[in-house]
């Protein structure tokens, strides 16, 4: 009998080990005094002394060499040659932060932008294991949704502590819920037309600053077998940039922000007119054939190769045309203008789109050490120095207040044009991707590809998106 009991106990002990190994680290959030190595496999690997007694308070007073090693996961989207300037800034911030926080090692995880935003991060958020520091977008579909679900760290006290609260431009709204800030935009951009000045000169074309010049340029290029606009429509967010600006100009600059309040409708005649313009341009052949097979990177490749005369893209692309960048072949032959005033548009025709939509968010599931790392990361990333470097090296507009002298240091001609576009803008409007809910946004992508493929009419597109919008607005009102 004793043996029976003994064997039973042995088996159940083995079983409990199994189950313990499978158990989640659910108490990690408030387990600040627990050793990070107990719940973080990666951390325990690196730790020279994984004994739980040597936890944070002890290591704080000890010299840096004795500090407990720990890792912090950091998801970024700076992959590929076109993003190398932004990556260099991130690398410097990472290095500086690691040298400031004893024992800290960042684990960088680079993922392509739209994969991260629309596939990987949502799945991780659903599973409750997002990276500790992550690239994130503002708005109802991203930061605000995750913040409401308690996945993101409330940064308000950290901003107070670091004195950053008033340093930001008025750009934190898409990253805030109930007055609390859950993410910090890294910079800003505006979406407009890049054009190849060489090609325009070759065909005697005026810069596309008026609607007639734009259409004339497009028609002339088309006639000469140059694609008027490069395209990357396989990634539907790329053509969505033009849709957004067309809606702002044709239906009015407040339209985009009115979708979630019900003030504007996707199937209203003005918004449908914006989609109609896309359909017309498709019909006229303003985009290269097979555009639905071209990804975002292909748009730049085609533009740099001179296969297209123009491309509608975000101002962040300006850094691709530097002498040592991926688009160096046409360096100095690229200019940037905003979409010219559209005849009969209801909006302010000097308005441009301005986004401060992308930045960093932080997991709410942090222990004491990780919190220290996050604070140091914020301090180093959101500094005047890095903001200025972002502007000068990467052409990303600052999201924080920079002095006029700093901004005057810009020498890159394209970045200067971008700054001019924003300076001359009567008003700005956001991209709807940082306004509407994720279901609605994804529906805009689905419907836009259908429109491009000729499988849906502009009115059908508007109706389908409005249906998704109505459902989401009704759910939000509950």
């Amino acid at each position, binding site marked *: 009998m004793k*043996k029976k009991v003994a064997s039973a106990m042995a088996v159940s002990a083995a079983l409990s080990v199994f189950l313990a190994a499978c158990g989640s680290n659910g108490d990690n959030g408030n387990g600040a005094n627990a050793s990070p190595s107990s719940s973080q496999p990666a951390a325990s690997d690196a730790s020279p002394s994984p004994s739980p007694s040597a936890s944070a308070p002890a290591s704080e007073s000890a010299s840096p060499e004795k500090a407990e090693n720990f890792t912090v996961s950091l998801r970024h989207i700076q992959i590929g040659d076109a993003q190398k300037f932004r990556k260099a800034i991130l690398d410097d911030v990472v290095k500086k932060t690691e040298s400031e926080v004893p024992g800290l090692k960042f684990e960088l995880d680079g993922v392509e932008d739209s994969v991260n935003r*629309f596939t990987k991060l949502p799945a991780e*958020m659903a599973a409750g294991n997002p990276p500790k520091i992550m690239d994130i977008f503002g708005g109802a579909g991203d930061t605000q949704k995750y913040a409401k679900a308690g996945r993101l760290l409330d940064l308000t006290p950290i901003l107070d502590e670091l004195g950053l609260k008033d340093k930001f431009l008025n750009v934190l709204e898409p990253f805030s819920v109930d007055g609390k800030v859950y993410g910090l935009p890294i910079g800003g951009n505006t979406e407009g037309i890049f054009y190849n000045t060489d090609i325009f000169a070759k065909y005697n074309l005026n810069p596309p600053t008026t609607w007639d010049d734009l259409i004339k340029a497009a028609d002339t290029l088309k006639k000469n077998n140059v694609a008027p606009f490069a395209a990357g429509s396989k990634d539907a967010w790329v053509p969505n940039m033009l849709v957004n600006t067309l809606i702002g100009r044709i239906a009015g600059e407040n339209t985009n922000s009115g979708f979630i309040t019900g003030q504007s409708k996707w199937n209203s005649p003005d918004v449908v007119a914006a989609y109609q313009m896309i359909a017309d341009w498709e019909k006229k052949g303003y985009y290269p054939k097979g555009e639905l097979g071209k990804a975002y990177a292909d748009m730049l490749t085609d533009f740099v190769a001179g296969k297209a005369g123009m491309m509608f893209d975000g101002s962040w692309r300006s850094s691709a045309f530097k002498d040592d960048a991926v688009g160096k072949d046409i360096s100095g032959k690229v200019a940037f203008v905003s979409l010219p005033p559209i005849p009969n548009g209801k909006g302010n025709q000097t308005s441009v789109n301005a986004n401060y939509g992308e930045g960093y968010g932080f997991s709410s599931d942090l222990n004491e050490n990780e919190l220290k790392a996050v604070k140091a990361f914020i301090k180093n990333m959101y500094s005047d120095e890095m903001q200025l470097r972002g502007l000068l090296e990467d052409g990303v507009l600052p999201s924080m207040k920079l002095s006029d002298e700093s901004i005057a240091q810009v020498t890159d001609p394209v970045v200067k044009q971008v700054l001019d576009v924003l300076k001359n803008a009567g008003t700005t409007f956001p991209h709807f991707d940082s306004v509407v809910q*994720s279901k609605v946004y994804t529906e805009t992508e689905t419907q836009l590809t*259908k429109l491009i493929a000729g*499988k849906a009419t502009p009115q059908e597109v508007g109706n389908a998106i409005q249906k998704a919008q109505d459902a989401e607005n009704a759910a939000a009102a509950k």
Partner: protein
Amino acid sequence: MRSTLKNPYVYLLFVLPTIALYFLFFIYPMLTSFYYGFTNWNGLDTKDYVGFANFANAFKDADFRHSILNNLIILLFSCCIQVPLIIVCSLLISGVKRLQGFYKTTVFMPSILSTSVIGILWGFIYDPDVGLLDKTLRSLGAPTIYWLADTNWALPAILITNAWQWMGFYIVLILAAILAIPREIDEAARIDGATGPQRAWYLTVPLIKPIINVVIMLSIAGALRVVDIVLVMTGGGPAGATDVMASYMVNKAIKYSDYGYGTALSIIIFAFALVLTALYQILFARRQERVEF
């Protein structure tokens, strides 16, 4: 010790860890998924019970119906075109005297490559500007086909790639069955004056019917769960032209953050696969008698 081993409960204890793991990683997720299918869960917040609304929406959803149709096209393609081709190829290879090992290895090769590799590889082949296929076609005077960007061509392109990937695996299966047929049967037929095609059709094929059945079963199952090649090559695009049930489900659940609806779709896919394989079993497979040599 001996008395311990006589007690059946001890054995139960030994099995318990496995059962527990099985329950934890299979039964429990299955049951919860089933529940999620009846909610409007978005993956993050609270979930409300919505009854059969998700299932009703699924059948009203024209895009989902289109993806079911795509699955059926893939199924028909693999059963009606791929399987006969597989049998023909196997018969040909089985008749080869020299370098049979070389052919076997060559046809088997694609099925050991990862689907992502194959998807990207064929993406290059299908590239309208620099791809092998279009360059060849253009040199023959054909117009450029935008394989993966054209709503009419994208699905055939994926069908070809998928067939290329999996045919070798099935060929090796069938080849093994053909080579296992005793030589004497074939020789007897040869002495009686049967020609090659006659021997293949009246002798070999009937003798390998059981394995052909297995191949058809696997093809049906494969056609219903095909998703990786679609996600790698087109992501269901252009404009949903290549969406299959599973890729549509992944899209709805993750991109739309509509986990409730996505789970409902996965239950439908499960039921669909179950019914189809059961139908095939009842209608065809059961009638087969075992072949004894």
